[in-house]
Each structure stands twice: as C-alpha cells, then as structure tokens.
C-alpha cells in the first residue's frame, strides 16, 4: 500500500507540473498529457530499469512516447526523477530550451528517442527491441501510443513486425482516452475493437484501468510471463484526468488554461507533499 500511496502522490506532483508548465508558456496539450500520468509515473517511479545519473546507460530500458505531444508529462517525470532541475520545466517550448515542443532525443536528458509526428513510435520500439536482443543487453522497451494515433497505418506495420520477431521485450501501452483532435475516436475514425486487432496481429493484450496503479503494476508484472509475443496494455483512460473541467472535453486537447482556470486546476489537483 505504501508503494501505491507514494505513486499516487507522485502522480499528483506530475499533474501539478503539467498544468503549471503549460500555463506558464500558454501552449501545450493538457488533456493528452493528463491521461498518461499514471502510466508514465508507474514506469519512471516503480518499474522501468533506468538510472537518472546515467541517462545514456546502454542497458537501460527504453521509453518511447509515441504520442509526443503529451511530453509535458514526460518532462515532469524526468525532472522529478532528477534528470534535470525542476525549474527547467518552466522553459517548456521556449527559445533555446532543453524542452522542445515535441520530444528531442539530442536536447533533453532522459529522452530516448525523438517523437511527435504520430505513427512512428511502435516501429522505433521494434528497432530498439531488436537491438536489445542483438546486443544481448536484454533491456525492455515501453512505447506509449494514443488511441487516435492508431489511425496511422504504420502502427500496424510496426505491429506485424513485432509479431514476426516475437518481441516479448516490447510493451505497447495504448492510452485509450477516446478523444482525438477533431472529436471522439468513434466519430473521426472508429478503431474498435482495438484488443481484437492487436490479438489478430498475434499480440498478447492486457486490458486495464489506466489510472489505477494496482492495475498498471499488475499488467507490467504479467508482461514478464509472456515469452513469445509482444504485449499491448490497453489502458482505459480519461482525457484531462484530474482536472474536472478538462475531463473528456475535446477542446482541452491542445489549449492552455487562463489564470482563473489555472488556479481552479491547481486547487483540484491539491497540495503536493513530495
């Protein structure tokens, strides 16, 4: 229980920084960032094999945020983990910042690979997972995909190749928040059944509540038992989770809060006691 409590407090801190940095620069994607807070917090603060003092450690697990526009969450996790100072978060998207509008491998410590144009992250993860085998370093690769992103045909090219090579060291989270930029995923481009699609590509699929730490940790533990397939963790989430007036509202995909909205959001997130 202590573990879960600590993760929940960390997630609260991540949410605070996400809102704070997007408000500061008046630009970014709060809704998309908030839906993956628990997934990324679980990876960085509980599960992934990483070392903030050695960001380029060759044996580290790789984390690829394929839905790169949600990088405020990534940056907040990296800062809280100690990859760079917390003050750096305030420079998000600004001139000559370490923190580009979308993730840049060569600028941000801890960012394993550039991302931001959708549909490439799963392929990138496939290449990393093949490298893990070839180099015998045996690291694992975690890719975070958006559900809207599944519209991209290359996702399914990545899925077929991961399956060909039986990449059980590749784990793809699908952040199923049911909203994409122009509307609901059902209106813009229906992708259900997502689980059946991945299963048809010969993936193992684990369905969870993407805001429940016990379920996320259970699923991650389960992946260790799977020996001959890549794993999709299909995470049911809420876009804008944790800020009531942002939840499930399309407009908060890529809009910064004004001062009144910022104050309300910070109040809802609550005091960060880390």
């Amino acid at each position: 229980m202590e573990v879960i409590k600590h993760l929940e407090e960390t997630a609260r801190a991540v949410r605070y920084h996400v809102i704070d940095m997007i408000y500061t620069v008046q630009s970014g994607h709060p809704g998309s960032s908030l839906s993956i807070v628990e997934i990324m917090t679980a990876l960085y603060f509980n599960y992934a094999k990483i070392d903030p003092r050695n960001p380029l450690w060759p044996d580290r697990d790789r984390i690829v945020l394929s839905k790169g526009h949600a990088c405020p969450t990534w940056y907040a996790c990296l800062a809280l983990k100690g990859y760079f100072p917390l003050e750096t978060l305030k420079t998000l998207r600004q001139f000559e910042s370490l923190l580009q509008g979308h993730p840049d491998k060569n600028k941000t410590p801890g960012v394993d690979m550039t991302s931001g144009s959708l549909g490439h992250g799963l392929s990138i993860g496939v290449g990393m997972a093949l490298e893990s085998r070839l180099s015998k370093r045996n690291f694992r690769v975690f890719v975070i995909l958006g559900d809207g992103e599944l519209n991209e045909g290359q996702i399914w090219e990545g899925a077929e190749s991961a399956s060909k090579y039986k990449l059980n060291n590749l784990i793809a989270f699908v952040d199923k928040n049911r909203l994409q930029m122009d509307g609901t995923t059902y209106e813009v481009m229906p992708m259900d059944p997502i689980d059946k699609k991945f299963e048809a590509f010969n993936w193992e699929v684990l369905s969870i509540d993407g805001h429940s730490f016990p379920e996320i940790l259970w699923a991650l533990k389960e992946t260790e038992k799977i020996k001959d397939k890549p794993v999709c963790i299909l995470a049911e989430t809420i876009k804008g989770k944790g800020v009531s007036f942002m939840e499930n509202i399309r407009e908060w995909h890529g809009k910064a809060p004004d001062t009144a909205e910022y104050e309300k959001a910070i109040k809802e997130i609550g005091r960060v006691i880390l």
Partner: protein
Amino acid sequence: MNLKKASMPTRKAFALRMEEMGALDKDFAVFESDIGYSTYSYLFGESYPERYFNMGLAEGNTISSAAGMASCGRTVIVCGYGVFITLRAVEAIRTYVCYPNLDVKFLSSHGGLTAAIDGVTHQATEDIAYMTTLPNMKVLVPCDTLSAKGCFDLALKTPGPVFVRLMRDPLYEVYNEGAELTVGGSTFLRTGKDITIVGYGDTVFQALEAAEILSAQGIEAEVMDAYSIKPFDREGFFTSVKKTKSCLVVENHQRRNGLGYEIATLLLAESPVPFDILGLRDTFGESGNYNLVMDKYGLSAACVVEAAKRITAKK
C-alpha cells in the same frame, strides 16, 4: 567509347562490399523491405542472418525501426528502391533519422532513368531533391563498381545519415583500384580547357562520350564526376570553371532542384559563366530501352554535345 563494360550494376557492387565488410565490422546491421534479391542485400543476409532484418513491404516501418535501432548506437544500412525510400518514407528519414542525426545509411537503387525498363513507378527522379534538402544528410552517387564499393566504405565510416544512389543496370568501369574517394570530393575524369561538364552516376558516361565527340570538333571538355553531391566539391568545381569559363550539368533527375540548381546558385553568387542543366524538364520518364529513353528526355551523349556547343558559343 573506349571504356570497359561493367561486370555488374552499382547496386550489386555496393551490396557485395557490404557483405565483405560484414566480416571486418561485426556491428552494423542491415534492414530490407522485401527486395533483397534485387538490392542484393540477401548476400549479407545469408552470411549474417542475425544482423539482417527483412521487414517486408513496409518502407516507413523499416526506416523508423532502423532509426530505433540506430538510436541505441548501432549503424544500420537500409536497402531499397529510391522512389519508395525517398518518397513513401521521407518523413521517417527527415524526423527520425536526420533530425536526431543517427547512423542510418541508405542503399538506394534504381536512381533516375537507369531503371528505364521498369517505368515511372520505379524511376527515382526526385530523390536527389528530397535527400539533399534534409539537414545532416550526405548524398553520394557512384558511377561504377569500384566507386560503388568506395561509397559503401565512406557511408560506413562517415558519422550520421548517408544516402547512396545506385543504378539498376551495369554501364561501364572508369575507376581504377586504389582511387581515393572522400565525402565532399570529386574526380576529374577528363581534362579540358573549354567547358566543365558535371555529371554523377550514369551521366558521367554520357559526359565522357560527349567529350570525345566534342574533342573531334575542337572543343575540349573537362568532365567532373560529382560523386559527392552533398557536400559538393566547390573548390574542385571552381578551379575547373575558372579555367573553362563555362559549365554544363547533366543529371538523371528532375532538372528542378537537382545538383544543377545547387551549382547555379553557387555560380550566381561567385562568378556567373555561360551555363545550362540537362535534366528532366518537369516531366516523368517512361518504360523502354535505357539509351532510347535517355535520348528522348534529352540526356544522351548527343544531347550533351549539342548543349555544350550552345554554351561554349556564348563565351
């Protein structure tokens, strides 16, 4: 023309060297998209199956996966046809190879109309425009067996992305053993005082053949093999043009946005001279015999002769 017929196309020479180097360099990996028997990457695959990944007919996934592997520090060579690599998968090259400046190298076959027989879908006639425009990308185009092998070695040892344009069919051999190729270098295959003719890949041979005809008519052409398109050998080029005071670029590519346009901007900025470019004039090619297609689209030796005479007359 008094040149030896080539024993193999440059695509095969490059792939043979790749297989040879596999024994000396145990690290680099090769990615293929189901045309391994055409790019000859299967040779590497047979010798080093653990480092050979056939990703099927999915060029975007092939290149993004190669980028993922290269992001871990390994050099990856991606094999394919120019049209598919540079057009279908150009965003993967731009954003995931060139932007992070990764060690991904491209064996890109069927450059220009050298894939004449295959028709437009397989003729890469815009590849140089796309690839030279991408920051961090280096672009090499060998014309024969030895220079193709040399370009493999250059690609492997040069940090960052390198694109190598290769040909479908064998033409001639012009390089000798021990020839030194460099990124940013060029080779003057013939010296002359009247005009500088710049070619790369197969057009080097059209230029050489034209130079012989021109010589019989009293015009001595200097032929530059610009095998390093980017970076381009400015110094060697200007040394030649200062002497010849005229220039013709012959390229098996769209006339727009190819090497000719680059050279035109260099000349305009430094010292304009009578100049022209032979390339595809806002048109696609077509199927057919290579020599007939080259002549129809204005790229044959006869077309080079005519253009060179027109240019030198303006001096």
